[in-house]
């Protein structure tokens, strides 16, 4: 059975639903506290899937994910890079995305380039929502056809079903320069976008999530782990019964990654 690592720490609070999503696709979730991992980074080698859950790590002091990223940059960045090199799919929703960006995991080196040995300075950021307010709602999303993300590539559904919930105050995707965004675009590293009419936070180019050049590491502001059963859908009481024969969009992402992990046998 696939083993999924879920990293918890002070203020992380979306670990349970992430574990349940992994369970639904046949992986066995294991929770490890950041403290334990920092003492034994090698523990990461035991897992075939990794999740950095959402929440408010360390209260999001200074900025969302800043403190957790700082604690992880030095000791854990190399261990995560090794996992990617081993072919392990990693998902980092919401606070996990904010952490992944600041600890140097995303967007990662350009295609074909090796990972730097120490964590690089971030070139993308998740800033305050344009409204400067936390917002909880469901938004329509789109998967770019050329994405190489193992979690999202090839997924599509009717627009009223291809939704994801968001709940964040600092999710506005920004980059140091337009060329960074163009680079991500041409390398297939834009993993998921908000629909044009449904960009909730002012993100550049409607970007909701990006992946590294290998497509394994996905960071995104929406929460696919909160859309795993049909009763999660915001208007499920309006959907026909026949819909239950298919799978909700959120859990499809986990299916894809689990499939990848199984076929790649990242052991």
């Amino acid at each position, binding site marked *: 059975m696939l083993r999924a690592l879920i990293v918890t720490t002070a203020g992380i609070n979306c670990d349970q639903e992430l574990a349940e999503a992994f369970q639904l696709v046949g992986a066995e979730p294991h929770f490890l506290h950041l403290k334990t991992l920092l003492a034994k980074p090698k523990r990461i080698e035991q897992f075939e899937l990794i999740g950095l859950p959402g929440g408010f790590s360390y209260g999001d002091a200074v900025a969302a994910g800043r403190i957790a990223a700082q604690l992880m940059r030095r000791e854990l960045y190399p261990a995560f890079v090794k996992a990617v090199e081993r072919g392990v799919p990693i998902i980092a929703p919401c606070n996990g995305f904010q952490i992944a960006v*600041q600890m140097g995991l995303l967007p990662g080196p350009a295609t074909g380039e090796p990972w730097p040995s120490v964590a690089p300075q971030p070139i993308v950021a998740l800033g305050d929502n344009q409204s400067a307010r936390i917002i909880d709602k469901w938004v329509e999303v789109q998967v770019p056809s050329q994405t190489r993300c193992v979690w999202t590539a090839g997924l599509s559904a009717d627009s009223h079903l291809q939704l994801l919930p968001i709940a964040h105050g600092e999710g506005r995707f920004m980059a140091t320069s337009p060329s960074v965004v163009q680079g991500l675009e041409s390398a297939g590293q834009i993993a998921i976008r908000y629909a044009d009419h449904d960009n909730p936070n002012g993100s550049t180019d409607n970007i909701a999530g990006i992946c590294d050049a290998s497509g394994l590491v996905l960071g995104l502001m929406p929460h696919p782990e909160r859309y795993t059963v049909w009763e999660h859908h915001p208007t499920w009481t309006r959907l026909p019964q026949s819909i239950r024969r298919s799978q909700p969009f959120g859990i499809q992402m986990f299916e894809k990654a689990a499939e990848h992990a199984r076929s790649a046998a990242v052991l």
Partner: protein
Amino acid sequence: MTEVVYRVEVRPRSSSGDARGEAVYRQVSSSSPECVPQQINTASVFLVQGALTTAQMQRIADEILADPVTEVATLFAPGDSAASESVNEDEHATVSEIEVHPLPGVMDPDAQAVELAIASLLDQGVAVRTGRRFELVGLSETEAHSIAVRCLANPVIHAVHTHRYHPEIFASGAPYELAVNHVAISTLDEQSLLALSREAHLFLSLDEMKAIQQAYKQRGIEPREIELETLAQTWSEHCVHKTLKSIVRYEGAMPGTKVRPGHTIEDDGAIVIDNLLKSTVAAATHELIDEGIDWCLSVFVDNAGIIAFDEDHGVCFKVETHNHPSALEPYGGAATGIGGCIRDIIGTGLAAKPIAATDVFCVAPPDTQDVPAGCLPPRRILEQVVGGVRDYGNRMGIPTLNGTVWFDQNYVGNPLVFCGCVGVMPRDRCEGDAQLGDHIIALGGRTGRDGIHGATFSSAELTDSHADEFSHAVQIGNAVTEKQVLDAILEARDNPSEQGGCLFSAITDCGAGGFSSAVGEMGELIGATVDLERAPLKYDGLTPTEIWISEAQERMVLAVPKKNLARLQEICDANDVEMCDLGVFGNQNRELILRYHNTEVGRLSMQLLHEGIPNTVRHASWSKKEEEVSGTAFRQPDHLVDDLRTLLSDLNVASKQWIIRQYDHEVQGRSVVKPLVGPDGNGPSDAAVIRPVAGSDRGLAIANGLAVGWSKDPYMMALAGIDECVRNLVCVGADPARIAILDNFCWPSCDESETMGSLVHAAWGCYDASKAYRTPFISGKDSLHNQFTTEDGRTIRIPATLLISGFSLVQDVTSCVTMDAKRAGHCLIIVGQTTTQMGGSRALARWPDAWADTSIPEVDLKQGPATAHAVSTLITSGVVHAAHDCSDGGLLVAAAEMAFAGDIGLRLDVSDLPIEGTPSLHERLFAENPSRYLLEVAQEDLDRVQTHLGDLPWAVIGNFDETTALSLSDISFNVELKELRSAWLAPLEW
């Protein structure tokens, strides 16, 4: 190297835009439109004290404090700040600086996290303080300062500086030297006893002071300060609910049922009630249990009531108020309100896991002009209480998914903040008791001077000087600490049985009264010995009394057998939770013994503490109220479209989505029916539904009932509140036979017999309705003395306010129903009767002269429950496509909400509406009779509807159609749904 203080300012790069600055600008322009700056720039300020070089500090600034993509950091070495000027592009405009920094001793959670990150970066300990900087362009310093105190800072917790704040060194406390003070009370006369009670902030009555005097006289000693304080905390209204538990002598008529337990009629006709709470609210529950309700697992004895959820799990619910702290510091008050309620759930049985939160606010309308001195503006109160609940609930990862807001002028000096929390627990973890020899273990936050006298302060009446006198009663929470404590406690609870099982034998939270209440309650039957110096402190200088009664947040007390201490310590270490061993439960004479470095500083018998409070007789009366004069200027139908728009824009009806969307109501991934429903997410759900247990289709619905509009008839208000709560639950598909409810009484001072009489009436209503609906009360709380005395001696009393919160099983979540209309071609039916009575309605509040009959409609205690059960059967049989409670605003508002939530046109025809008397068209549309439901059903199912509803009054009152409008047959009434929707969304879209 000596310690110095560096200052760092972090501001957004110009390319990123200053979203926070713009938000503050919007806030300032809405709250003081007469004095608006041209622009507001913001920056975060960090003060870092340590033995650091400038290079090290630069690294901290670049790597921890500023984001390289979106921000720039400016570093000020010691002494640098004074010389630097504010930057502004427009050189001609004045720039006034405002800096807001927490006062010394006020919790600064961000600072603690930064200290941790710096320690990791440099392997070196530093001290950090944070603050916020605002540059107000185009305002004078005086104008800027007045804006600062109005909307940027609260002097209760903040210092406001008009220049860059850069101290040479942080203030620190001095070590405490022990002094044990005796308070000479044996010789005091009545007046001096009362003066002592008030001046020492004990807020005890004369009878209570005399009881203490007597008890000490018998022992021939004077009380020590810590003993008096312990008695005051434990005997406070907040902790012991002495008014609701008192003997009441009532004179006047008795509404409803004629026979109630614990009531005797004296020769002069007065009714004497022995323990009001026990004889009404609790009596109903115990009678229902005797009559066969077998799913109540724990009622009234624990921090929350527990009911059975399934074979393996119980669910518990608690609702608290945090009114007085929220009046002084709304953000911190509301945050610690929800934080405290969450701790109640963690402290229920042997710990429950919080899975949902609720919030209800009662405030004055935001446009209130006449705000008395000593009160904060109502809009600011609402914005900040929402912020407090948002930040605490979201950070804890608990979805806040049900609530409401009620606006009334008389909440201006005394807003109400109700916070609720629901938890789930294994059924074998529902009970716990401290055992002899168990260690007294405190987990979580450190103890500081914050929150001292919170319990006694909340039991007093607010006055215009309270902000100064009780600033120390205000606390700032740290949700992340509480989350860590929760994680550790659940791990200790679920410790595998081969490793000894649950590691503690009892648990409770440190709420009002701090350690004194928590340890005093847990050790009530066996005694406790406490070594106060062992409590970890935030800073030096606390006296043993302060440690004992501090209400510092995020602390839990556990009774832990000695053999489990090591394992618990491991769990705490792994979760970064501080654990301390305060002493031992159990001693020979059942005493509370308090020591400080081996010196005894206090000793009290548990008997005096818990049973010594004198039970006084309270006088209650109810005189016949004068009939209000009815109006004659009846509303005419040609105004109907405007009237509907007016009611949809009434603050008590309008959408609360501005609040709801700030709460993460999806966290934990268990939502089934969300607070907002319909294709555009605009529909106001009657209740929320979640799945407490992963993988199970059994659900839990959560709702509330609040009928403040009926306040002048408190008996009927209680009935209406319970009826509304039941309706809300039934409408989403909950099982009406499995509803449990909670009471929260918020009343003005009950020293006056008429006010006490109104409390008695409400309690009677609770008894009668709880029995009739077979909805047991499982927990409750009261907050009395909710009134405000202005500078000139005027007393503003809140309307008597009874909140009913309820939760219920949903047998199968896949059959839940939402309120948004689903399909054109379906018809709309109403179940329940409408009369001419306009009492309590929004239409009456809006057009007081327009109605002939202003009496309050009765709740029929036979028909109400029968209707709830019949509607529920209809829903479970699958014929109902949408269900909505018909309440605030009346039939037309409820029908409009269904139509615009589902974006489906509706043509109404109310000529066959089930009525009593001869209501006019306006009365039919705007009356707020209870026990009414609106249901969407298919034409072909009407026969089945008739079968299920039998003799109950019901009728088809409309058809959903292909239009985009709401129309009424017979008269020219036709209005686009989108117009109605925006009328409803606009008022609170802040």
